[in-house]
């Protein structure tokens, strides 16, 4: 097999893995701040690709040009989700919040998936895809698929800015403080309730932008939302809770494993890889690769 084939697979795997890492990071941020496991998190990913598809179809813009539109839009969606679904519906039950949150967000996921499937079907679309075809470029004799290469650069920039937001801004400091110790954060003046809304917005923004990129490199159906939540959880089990580096490394492991499985055994098999990896990790190292209690 040629070097180019491997390069293409690795490029695809890194891209996919980076996206999984960002999706998982959003999931753990939300869980860390609000103690709610948002089962519908993966549906924000799918909604991101659906929104991307709709915007590009109706405005004729290039998918790369709408990258700046998606994060603020989904930030608003996430905050809205927190203000309505979480505060009004889930928090009504004070005694059994986590159990109710699993059921309620699962139900929300099913409703969103069914309605978006119906809507897309009405528009004559069975799957969501935003393929951009650009001529492959030739660097030092290697043929590089341009779309994936540009996506990877955009993804690296996205990951760096996410890291800066979490590590160096006031918002990031408050976010980390709330995850580490909710009560103590409140004592030192962090508005924990507001952080919950912002964390949902932040998580949804990460999920939405990941969905846009995913639609550019692969095609997905509305029913894949729950699948992405399971993948994100696998990444969390691999990489540890709330750790930026852990999420990224866990995501890259899954992404590369999926890319190679898709090449050697077909895309049908790529879908089971994440779950098999999760089972294997739980058998070998129940505390995950990066440790931490769960």
């Amino acid at each position, binding site marked *: 097999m040629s070097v180019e084939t491997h390069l293409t697979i690795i490029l695809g795997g890194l891209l996919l893995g980076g996206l999984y890492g960002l999706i998982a990071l959003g999931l753990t941020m939300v869980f860390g701040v609000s103690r709610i496991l948002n089962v519908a998190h993966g549906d924000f990913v799918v909604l991101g690709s659906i929104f991307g598809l709709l915007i590009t179809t109706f405005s004729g813009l290039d998918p790369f040009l709408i990258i700046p539109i998606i994060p603020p839009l989904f930030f608003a969606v996430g905050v809205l989700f927190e203000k309505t679904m979480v505060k009004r*519906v889930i928090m009504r039950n004070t005694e*059994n919040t986590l159990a109710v949150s699993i*059921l309620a967000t699962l139900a929300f*996921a099913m409703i969103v998936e069914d309605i978006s499937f*119906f809507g897309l079907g009405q528009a004559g679309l069975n799957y969501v895809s935003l393929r951009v075809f650009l001529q492959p470029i030739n660097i030092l004799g290697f043929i590089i698929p341009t779309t994936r290469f540009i996506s990877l650069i955009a993804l690296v920039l996205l990951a760096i800015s996410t890291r800066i937001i979490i590590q160096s801004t006031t918002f990031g400091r408050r976010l980390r403080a709330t995850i580490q110790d909710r009560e103590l954060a409140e004592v030192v003046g962090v508005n924990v309730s507001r952080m919950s809304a912002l964390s949902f917005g932040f998580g949804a923004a990460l999920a939405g932008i990941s969905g846009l990129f995913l639609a550019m490199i692969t095609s997905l159906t509305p029913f894949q939302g729950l699948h992405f939540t399971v993948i994100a959880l696998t990444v969390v089990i691999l990489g540890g809770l709330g750790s930026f580096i852990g999420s990224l490394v866990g995501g890259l492991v899954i992404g590369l494993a999926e890319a190679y499985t898709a090449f050697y055994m077909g895309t*049908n098999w790529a879908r*089971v890889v994440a*779950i098999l990896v999760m089972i294997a990790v739980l058998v070998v190292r129940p505390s995950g690769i990066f440790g931490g209690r769960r």
Partner: protein
Amino acid sequence: MKLGRAIIPISAIALAAVASIPLYSSPYIISLLFFLFTFIGLAIAYDIFGGFTGYYNLGFGAFFAIGAYTFPILSLGKLGFQAHPILAFLTAPLVSGAAAFLLSYPFLRLRGAYFAVATFGLIPLMYNLARNLSFITGGASGIQIIVTEFFGMLPGFYIAMAVTVAAAITHHLIKRSRVGLALNSIREDEDVASEYGINAFAVKRLVYVISGIFAGILGANFGFGLGVVSPDGILNLEIALAPLIMTIFGGPASLLGAMLGASLITLIQEFLWLNMPFFHLATYGLIILLVAVFAPRGVVHIGVKRRAGRSLTTAPLNA
């Protein structure tokens, strides 16, 4: 106490009455009873693990699917040897029980929300395995089951009923036993239970396997009754999550709750299937949402005020 003694003759008469319904009713009623008893049995089987431990086992449908597939795979000789149908039928629960035993090692190390979402991964895993291993499972179109001597929903209904009774008796016996007490303490506080010498992992594994065995035999019977086993028919979300929703709706760790929840949800679903051309999944989601918000401890506990220091079914789900 009087009711307690009378419950055996009363339920025997009720079962005999239900068992005689097929003698004078239409095939539609028989199929409805078949679904009803399959889901009551599944809800009770789910409750043996999920209700007693307070864990949310979103992957329960996987054991149902393993049973459903094992029966035709063995009886139709998909693995190269053909087993007698009855032998294949009885092997199905053993295979799903063995799967539960093996899967208990990775999954029962997780708690709370992690357990719920991780076990949910089993549903897409089984779905994709069923689709991809098409030389055994028939792929997306599934396997037609043609067992000439015994076929159809009528024997399926009687088997489902018998399994449901067996599951109910098992449920009752576990609840009354030392294991039941251990499960109770695990649900209240697993760490404290372990401190006091309960082998939490072994106890959880025991009921996880029992729950899986019942799911397996009901799965085999379900495929046998329908006459076809396919990924979309056996592993769709509505079937996979039904037992969980039913037990929570009815009231966890309660035989009456499981029966009530399964009956109500099955009838609601039947109504939806007959009257709504689409949005089944969305409507089902809406039902789950309403259950989660208004009856998170089940309809059997509606109106029951929580006494201080004694929780009924609330599970400590903090990870």
